[in-house]
């Protein structure tokens, strides 16, 4: 689907984006009397995005008309990816993204160490196949990483990561 209609979707989205961008420049008024104010470049860029999206849309329509299912291209690109075998799915990307969002959301409450440990364990499990799970090892790695990162940055670089309930 994305292979076939990707260009059309992205061009339409970017046309809308360009329109919105252009409209929102209307209330930008420069305080100085100059020929090129803060609104000029955004307008040029918006027009540019619009024009090139139209070209992309036309190309995309042409591509759909002459579309034939892709023959798996051979080459270096696949070589780099052949160790991520298995079925690719958008769902697992969304779940990973959700995990990361939860991680960042709970960080101010639970603090860096606890939230990172929990996140790492869940993410390790999610990325590995069920039969390869090794929860005690994962937990150990997660704790060691979280604690050492926290103290490494705190003591060496004075980076105050959130302490949360441990503080």
């Amino acid at each position, binding site marked *: 689907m*994305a292979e076939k209609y*990707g260009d059309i*979707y*992205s061009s339409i989205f970017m046309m809308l984006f360009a329109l919105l*961008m252009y409209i*929102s420049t209307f209330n*930008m*008024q*420069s*305080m100085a009397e*100059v*020929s*090129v*104010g*803060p609104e000029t*470049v*955004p307008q040029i*860029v918006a027009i*540019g*995005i619009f024009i*090139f999206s139209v*070209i*992309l849309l036309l*190309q995309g329509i042409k591509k759909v008309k002459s579309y034939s299912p892709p023959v798996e291209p051979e080459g*270096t690109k696949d*070589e*780099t990816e052949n*160790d*991520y*075998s*298995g*079925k*690719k*799915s958008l769902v697992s*990307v969304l779940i990973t*993204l959700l995990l*990361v*969002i939860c*991680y*960042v959301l709970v*960080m*101010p409450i639970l603090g*860096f160490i606890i939230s990172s440990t929990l996140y*790492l364990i869940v*993410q*390790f499990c*999610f*990325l*590995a*196949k069920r039969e*390869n799970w090794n929860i005690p090892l994962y937990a150990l*790695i997660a704790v060691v*990483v979280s604690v050492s*990162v926290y103290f490494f*940055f705190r003591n060496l*670089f*004075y*980076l*105050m*990561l959130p302490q949360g309930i441990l503080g």
Partner: protein
Amino acid sequence: MLEMLSAGFSEMLTIYTMSLIFIGVAMGLVFGSIPGLTATMAVAICLPITFTMSPSDGMALLMGLYIGGVSGGLIPAILLKLPGTPSSISSTFDGYPMAQKGQAGKAFGLAIVFSFLGGLLSIATLILIAPPLAQFAVRFGPIEYFAITVFALTLISSLSDGSIVKGILAALIGISLAMVGSAPIDAFPRFTFGMNALDAGFNLLPALIGLFAISEFLKTSESKVNPLVKKISYKIKGFGFSVAEFFKQGWNFFRSAFIGIAIGILPGIGGGTANIIAYATAKNQSKHPEEFGKGTPEGVVASESSNNAAVGGALVPLMALGIPGDTVTAMLLGGLVIHGIQPGPLFFTSNTDIVYGIFAALIIANIAMLVFLFLGMRFFVKLLSIPKHILLPIILVLCVVGAFGVNNRLFDVWALLFFGVLGYLLIKLKFPLTPVILGFILGPIAETNLRRGLMQTQGDFLPFFTEPIAVFFFGVAIVSVGLKIWKNHRKKQTEINISGGV
């Protein structure tokens, strides 16, 4: 110049700074040798660490990472036929067959020594041409700068892989993202949606890490990671090759290194393209082109000397003009800006110590790379068996820490995730990412100079098209786009001819 270089060395030759360079090279090699992790990612993760260091120390670490990151890719390329980084794609073509024939040691020896020599030649070139170029560029006014940034942006969009329309759109997206926040010159707030956190715009660091590291992480999470279990065995003795074999590669080496340097200097393409072009040229020029792909040392030498040569090349426009040529140099620009240094012509007069410190750091890092690879080969080979499902989440945590460290606030972490998702979507829709980040960096420079130039000319656009230097750069920009369109057109024509003929 020599005394400044020796001053640079004396700045680098402290135990602390030297150990930073060594740590950088070692980490870079680790990142380079693990497929899926790149030099860009290594620099991104380490940028926040340089916050508290002095500028020279910070740059010492980053230069080590850069050299190590580009070089590490040769290990899995030769042993596993997996390029560790895009820079070592063509090292797999002949390196892997050589390893299959039991010549892994020879392939490693040649790859490492010629990586070193390629890097050294390009650093020498950098030291020779960057200062005069900067001296020449000091005379540039806003009009010239506007022309150069526009030239760099068009070149990047037209030279990066795939469709030119997508390349230009990607650059425009980058420019629009950089517009969030206060406008240059009059600080008028734009596209902040009433959020105070956005008044200063998106910080470069979360944008960089998000686009290049988080997007890669999301891409990997598409499927379950298979633990990589492959028995790896090889033998290496001394350098692995004879003196005669070394000198046989002389001309091949100079040609490939020259290609690497030249491609490195051009904005938008770096080691990833250089090694493929150098390999193709070596094959075309060879008396025995049929041996390429079957394990000829020439192929390994061409690929490895060109990708390391691209390092010095890419640093020329960054240091002399303040214009990054690829993603790693964009990161390095970020690293300098963090320390309040703006690379460009004035960099050479106002921060001479840092400039020559960088040169010295590069030379030291290059030597460290040679030594580490020969002594530590066993260790780096072991790294290849670390499972990805453990490594990638840890890298994500480090990215989060890095983004948080920018301003000690979670807002930048959210920005990081935003750019990560954006990068992932763009990868999926087959947009190139490099133009986005360069648009993000160069867009504001272009706008500032356009508006300054117009103030200078009292709103007259004519001087933009009459100043000779500006006209030259606009001209080259148009020619580069024209060439790409023509090339794409011709490619399509031949495709039609082929399919028609069949």
